[in-house]
């Protein structure tokens, strides 16, 4: 049962931003993550600022520059079903379809999805952990089977979004409104690793809100995919996942990105894989070596050593599949 909070549903983005600038104010988009966090006491909200009436933040459209604009309040289900997304950016459609459950996809928004708080059970549970202002990361010596093997530092969460790795692979940019001027941030610079700041996952400041996501026009030869391995068939976060956005010309990899989910505290770009496949025709031994390379710097914890063979397997499989 939720603790109490005040509630406001502003009619304009400017009003919303003003409300959100106050200490303790929290934005309510789909609410699926907000309500869960409030229920579990992960954080408190003095004021919930509903974005429900900001219809301008909803919908998918082409921009004049050839980018695809996805309003931050577009639901995950709408993204997954959108014919343009499915045709041009299959990785994003597949990632959106792999999120949580149908009901949550119908409610949760793409903006909320990339801003969601970590799913670490210590962070979500009755533990005053480092990320909540405490002094200990319980995962380090505890039940860390679902924690990170790359990029951990003081805190060992994984970033739990499926959509963020796909967007990052596709080179997306987010547009942000805030108390000061709005800004656009490439997704590469949007997520904050624990080595920089252990109490936040994104660069958003108090009062700021993601308003839209921009996807660049697909290059000729772009192929993309998202493959997710999870512990059960639905309503489960990635044990390991890989988003591929590769430009393949004349049968060879001319460029692109490889981003891992379930690996690190942020969506994890694997430059090792990108280098290993650059210029190749993704021959079987290339895929195998690339998968090996991805795990070169992996530092498993006590209970998540399986992620190393799992990532090798899923990366090899995804690379093999995208070649076909």
């Amino acid at each position: 049962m939720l603790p109490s909070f005040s509630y406001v549903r502003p009619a304009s983005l400017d009003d919303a931003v003003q409300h959100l600038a106050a200490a303790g104010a929290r934005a309510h988009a789909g609410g699926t993550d907000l309500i869960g966090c409030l229920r579990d006491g992960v954080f408190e909200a003095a004021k919930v600022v509903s974005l429900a009436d900001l219809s301008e933040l909803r919908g998918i459209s082409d921009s004049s520059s050839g980018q695809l604009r996805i309003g931050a309040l577009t639901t995950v289900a709408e993204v997954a079903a959108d014919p343009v997304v499915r045709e041009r950016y299959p990785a994003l459609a597949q990632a959106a379809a792999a999120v949580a459950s149908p009901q949550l996809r119908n409610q949760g928004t793409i903006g909320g999805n990339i801003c969601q708080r970590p799913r670490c059970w210590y962070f979500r549970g009755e533990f005053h952990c480092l990320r909540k202002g405490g002094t200990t990361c319980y995962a380090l010596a505890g039940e860390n089977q679902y924690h990170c093997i790359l990029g951990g530092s003081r805190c060992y969460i994984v970033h739990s979004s499926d959509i963020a790795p796909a967007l990052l692979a596709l080179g997306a940019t987010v547009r942000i409104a805030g108390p000061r001027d709005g800004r656009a941030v490439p997704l590469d610079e949007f997520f904050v690793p624990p080595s920089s700041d252990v109490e936040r996952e994104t660069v958003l400041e108090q009062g700021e809100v993601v308003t839209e996501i921009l996807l660049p026009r697909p290059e000729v030869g772009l192929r993309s995919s998202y493959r997710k391995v999870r512990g059960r068939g639905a309503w489960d976060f990635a044990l390991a996942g890989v988003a591929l956005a590769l430009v393949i010309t004349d049968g060879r990899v001319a460029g692109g990105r490889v981003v891992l989910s379930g690996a690190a505290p942020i969506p994890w770009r694997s430059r090792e894989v990108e280098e290993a496949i650059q210029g190749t025709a993704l021959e079987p031994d290339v895929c195998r070596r690339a998968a090996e390379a991805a795990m070169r710097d992996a530092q498993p914890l006590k209970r998540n050593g399986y992620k190393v063979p799992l990532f090798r397997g899923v990366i090899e499989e995804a690379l093999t599949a995208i070649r076909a």
Partner: protein
Amino acid sequence: MSKDVSGAGDCEQRDSGRVSRRGFLSSVGTGALTVAAVGSAAAEAAPSGTVVQASELTKVALHINGRRHELLAEPRWSLSFVLREELGLTGTKSGCDRGECGACTVLIDDVPRYACMTLAVEAEGKPIVTVEGLMRGEELGPTQQAFLEEDAFQCGYCTPGQIMAAEGILRANPDPSLDEVRLGVSGNLCRCGTYAHIFKAARRAAELKREMGGAA
């Protein structure tokens, strides 16, 4: 030796100062008004900048099963709480109150959502359909009838949510494949394990709806 589990005791750390005054609540608890729906479910949002205080009950108008219900609600009240405890629509069940089981599934804007993860104030102005809303008078609706025929439940507690999930699939896609059905009900747990019969029921419901033509 005492282990350091500081922070483990959620209850110990909470202050008690955030709780609102609500002494008159018991007198309005069942005072929800029900009037026939008039026209469309137009939104009645609070004006921009009008803040409902945490301690306040605010008027909420919900459009449920074609009828308009006005009631007083706290901002934190979930739609499932309001449906079940304030309006007596207990066909919608409560299994987890955290968006993980689907027993509270209702249609909002014709798509299945978890009523427990939806604030009642956020549902204002949108058409809501609960399992009671699938009835045609005293007759079962086609999806309900299909669940009956296929014995697509055991204890029956997840069943209204399963039915609403199946109804949501069929409203979007009148002839779903087996895989589409499985995906569509994958947000609804059934601890009795009747999924195989639920798959049959959803497809039988599609048949029944077709047989009934547009009426269903």
